[in-house]
């Protein structure tokens, strides 16, 4: 497992994608076939359930180290990762065990059916034969999750570099149906188990943020204006009655959205369409927050399907009955799209509405009203535009609503996870309510690493609690919080709920007395 452990170290330490790809390629060049297959399986989330409960492991560590539970937990909240905490707390190993990755994995799979005593003997023996970093890997193998900053896309790019096979085909191959026991590495890469011709996607056409006055875009009649939606941009492919969904990040996400697959299967013909996957309930588009519950799940449960139903807003058509339409104009493609969906009516699949307008000056109001139904703003597409490869300036523009902002004070800070586990990165903010403060939002994005480091240091000095993961801090640091929407809410103590709150700026120039009051915050609801 030494090579695998070194690979993980190399991947973890860098945030340069190229360095990660380099490390992966080197590993693939030398590792045994079975190990390579397991690596791909692990990194793409094909894992079996954990053979040993984490509580058992925690108990064994406390027994070995003779540490009280509070100190174990304190260590855990400082390290931010259970497998790593355990690896670091244990005494140095007395033996040396070296086995290939696939042997460890096989042993762990077999461990599942054994008694707790047998599990304990096995795990303790392993701990005593592995160095801290390998121990951490072993603990992660038990847990089954490897969140170490390697996306499927990165993995596929490494495999492409290794084999010269097209990345999208590899993406389909590794996501397809296979297990490390029933395939060889070369078979997997060659894609014998899939039919790539049917799943092959086109590159997405992307838009730039609008950077000029609308008047400068020319004649209103030359433009098609639609609402912009914040979901998962997807390319839906139906060829020879097979359906595939590709995300904008070039990952195959078909399995995550069974109801869309089902709805698309009902349609006649073969086609490739471009659209937005959105959480839609009772004909209302929900927030991205809601959609997020549906993402990156291994199993989409029935409960989840009911809780967060999804649908598709269709923007464009790229291929029909095997004919590539991308060189046709937007106007022509739109007509084809409308024809296709006139024949095929579906609740789940809706054409993105084309906004009727006569003059540019109508659009600003429409853009700002978009917030009220969870649209992000407007898309402006030239009717004569072809479906470009990637980003091309001039033909497609996105024009988002301006975010709302308030000034709020930080009252709690919590450590992040993964790369952010060493810092206080997640904050809770409050505004004034008469003489008290009332919580209005939690946010964890928008600051630079440097600012986070500075704030973490400040939290260390100004925290009221001494133990545990959440620190109450002196209400002193003021932030401008940006958000996409605001509504009354009974679930929140403040009576309001903000959508997508994030930190726009750290207002070092402001103090507690400059923050917003709950009244001024609520006033935003009336205006918007």
């Amino acid at each position, binding site marked *: 497992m030494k090579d695998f452990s070194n690979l993980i170290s190399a991947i*973890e*330490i*860098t*945030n340069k994608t190229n360095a990660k790809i380099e490390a992966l390629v080197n590993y693939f060049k030398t590792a045994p076939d079975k190990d390579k297959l397991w690596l791909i399986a692990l990194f793409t989330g094909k894992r079996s359930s954990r053979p040993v409960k984490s509580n058992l492991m925690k108990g064994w560590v406390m027994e070995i*180290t003779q*540490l*009280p539970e*509070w*100190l174990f937990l*304190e*260590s855990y909240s*400082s*390290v*931010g*990762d259970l497998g*790593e*905490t355990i690896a*670091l*707390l244990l005494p*140095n190993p007395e033996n040396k065990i070296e086995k290939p990755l696939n042997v460890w994995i096989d042993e762990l799979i077999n461990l599942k059916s054994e008694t707790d005593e047998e599990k304990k003997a096995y795990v303790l023996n392993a701990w005593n034969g592995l160095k801290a970093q390998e121990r*951490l890997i072993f603990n992660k193998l038990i847990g089954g999750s490897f969140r170490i900053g390697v996306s499927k896309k990165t993995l596929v790019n490494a495999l492409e570099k290794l084999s010269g096979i097209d990345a999208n085909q590899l993406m389909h191959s590794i996501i397809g149906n296979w297990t490390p026991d029933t395939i060889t590495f070369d078979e997997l890469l060659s894609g014998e188990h899939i039919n790539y011709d049917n799943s092959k996607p086109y590159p997405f056409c992307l838009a730039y943020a609008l950077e000029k006055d609308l008047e400068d875009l020319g004649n209103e009649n030359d433009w098609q204006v639609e609402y912009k939606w914040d979901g998962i941009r997807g390319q839906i492919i139906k060829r020879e009655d097979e359906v595939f969904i590709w995300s904008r990040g070039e990952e195959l996400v078909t399995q995550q959205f069974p109801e869309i697959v089902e709805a698309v299967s009902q349609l006649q013909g073969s086609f490739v369409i471009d659209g937005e996957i959105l959480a839609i309930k009772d004909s209302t588009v929900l927030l991205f927050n809601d959609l997020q519950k549906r993402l990156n799940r291994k199993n989409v449960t029935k409960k989840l399907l009911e809780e967060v139903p999804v649908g598709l807003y269709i923007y464009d058509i790229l291929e029909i009955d095997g004919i590539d339409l991308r060189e046709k104009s937007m106007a022509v493609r739109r007509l084809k799209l409308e024809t296709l969906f006139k024949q095929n009516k579906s609740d789940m699949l809706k054409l993105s509405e084309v906004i009727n307008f006569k003059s540019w000056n109508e659009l600003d109001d429409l853009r700002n009203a978009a917030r009220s139904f969870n649209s992000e703003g407007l898309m402006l597409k030239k009717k004569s535009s072809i479906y470009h490869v990637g980003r091309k300036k001039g033909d497609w523009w996105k024009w988002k609503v301006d975010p709302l902002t308030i000034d709020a004070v930080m009252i709690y800070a919590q450590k992040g996870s*993964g*790369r*952010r*586990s*060493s*810092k206080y990165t997640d904050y809770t903010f409050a505004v004034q309510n008469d003489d008290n403060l009332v919580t209005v939002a939690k946010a964890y994005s928008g600051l630079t*690493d440097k600012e986070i*480091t500075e704030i973490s*240091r400040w939290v*260390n*000095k100004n925290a009221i609690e*001494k*133990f545990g993961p959440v620190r109450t801090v002196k209400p002193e640091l003021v932030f401008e919080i940006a958000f996409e929407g605001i509504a009354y809410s009974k679930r929140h103590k403040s009576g309001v709920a903000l959508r997508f709150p994030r930190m726009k700026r750290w207002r070092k120039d402001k103090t507690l007395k400059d923050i917003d009051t709950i009244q001024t915050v609520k006033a935003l609801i009336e205006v918007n």
Partner: protein
Amino acid sequence: MKFIKFTKKGIYCIPGKFYLDPWFPVDYAIISHGHADHARWGNKYYLCHNDSKAILKHRIGQDISIESMGYNEPKMINGVQVSFYPAGHIIGSAQIRLEYKGYVIVFSGDYKTQPDFISVPFEPVKCNEFITESTFGLPVYKWKSELDLQAELQNWVLQNQQNNRTSVFLGYSLGKAQRIMKLVEGVDDVYVHSAINNFNKTISGSGITIPETTLIKPDFDKKNIQNKIVILPPALLGSKLLKRIPNAATAICSGWMHIRGNRRWKGVDAGFAVSDHADWDGLLEAVKATEAEKVYVTHGSQAVFSKYLNEICIEAHELKTEYGEDELAKQDILKTETA
């Protein structure tokens, strides 16, 4: 606290009328070591270990009134017997032992119990009251031996050379830099930043032998540096100088690098847990060896460490000080220093 008290200006010895590592200017300051959060500007009179004297003068001013003495050389100040014992933290670092009417208090300053190749090894001192730091006061911190670190750092350099890369270590200009110099000694030429070079000159000027290094000037010749070893202060991470170094592989040397999250946060190529502070076992060992009846825990994990000491029946109290809560805080100090 028999004859000392904790004041706004720092730890004060009542009969001796002096302060230990004060953070505001006082008349008489006894200094444990030369780091900026312990040896501050503006005191009227300084007393420190012989090996720290030149460092303090370099850092604070050549014209300060300063006296120094060796380890284990007691000096009477207003009826209080003051003596220094090795703290193993950096060159010239001392624990300060105070004895008054037969009662002994020891102030640890910053310390490390594991020996390295450059500072005088830590020596435990029996006392009635012990004031200890707790920078790495969590059981997850467990340092490798100096020999293991040596192998680790040297292997990294050799591996970099195979890949045609220049090894750049980031570590504080006083203490860590010299320790890294010693750890990689003999592998290849070592280039250092001017802040480090100044300390090197100061240290060797006072008669201590340290490995030879070359100053890296802002207009250095890239060909000469390629594949060699460079040591820079941490504040230079992301600097123009670092960007000019050809094919640089960067590594931070700090106890915090023991945790993956910290290693990953910095966006460097490697992180080595080379710490000048005691690890968990070191802290416990040191406290136990003093046989102190009372322990005061300062900067770091004071809440955790004092709670644990009390649980194992060693009376302990937390103490709030202005010493570096976070080693990283020193980077800010460094920045103004190198500017």
